[in-house]
């Protein structure tokens, strides 16, 4: 898991499979408010695709791409999107996280505004869940082994 796997079957299958897994994760996030699924499940599926890449392609490249800055950025970006949407609703005269207040900002009726607000929330949840799951896995793999 730590070092790169040189098996050609594993490498090629991973390269083609990761694209489909990520597409399915984005589908689940985007259709979360109309059908089963949502931000949490879609984020978990996205994290599973990155975990598959780590287990087959090695952790060194991933640690280089997914560095400390990006880790903290994505961890807090989803929470920021969630809270920011709520505060926008608050500033527009509605309750906190009452998305019908968004209809004052965009030229849509309150029902459509609720639909859009739920979608934005789902995107935020998906980003944070994906980043947290990936962080837990990477930290578990790279923690210093206790010598006994």
């Amino acid at each position, binding site marked *: *898991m730590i070092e790169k796997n040189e098996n050609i079957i594993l490498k090629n299958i991973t390269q083609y499979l990761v694209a489909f897994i990520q597409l399915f994760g984005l589908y*689940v996030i985007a259709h979360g408010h109309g059908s*089963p*699924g*949502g931000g*949490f*499940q879609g984020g*978990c*599926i996205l*994290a*599973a695709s990155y*975990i598959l890449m780590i*287990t087959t392609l090695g952790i060194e490249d991933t640690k280089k791409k997914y560095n400390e800055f990006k880790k903290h950025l994505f961890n807090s970006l989803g929470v920021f999107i969630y809270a920011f949407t709520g505060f926008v609703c608050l500033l527009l005269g509605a309750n906190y996280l009452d998305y019908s207040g968004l209809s004052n900002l965009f030229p849509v009726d309150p029902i459509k505004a609720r639909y859009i607000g739920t979608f934005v929330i789902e995107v935020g949840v998906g980003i944070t869940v994906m980043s947290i*799951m990936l962080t*837990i*896995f990477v930290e*578990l*793999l790279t*923690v210093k*082994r206790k010598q*006994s």
Partner: protein
Amino acid sequence: MIWQVDLIILLLIVVLAIAIVNTKNLFTATILFGGYSFLMCVLWTGMGAVDVAFTEAAVGAGVSTAVFVAAIYQTTRRSKD
């Protein structure tokens, strides 16, 4: 759901749970736990709770198995039998 299928799945869940507790190998326990999660997912789909089943399939059988494997990677065997 057809009650025969329901009974078979419930029996398999009980058998898997007892096997998880009783096995000595940690890796075997992890893989059996993935199977347990998948059977719970099938059961919840039969009850009509598709959202819960989706979460169980994504978290229980997918991510949690990978996290358990990463945790086992950090352990060592105390005895060499």
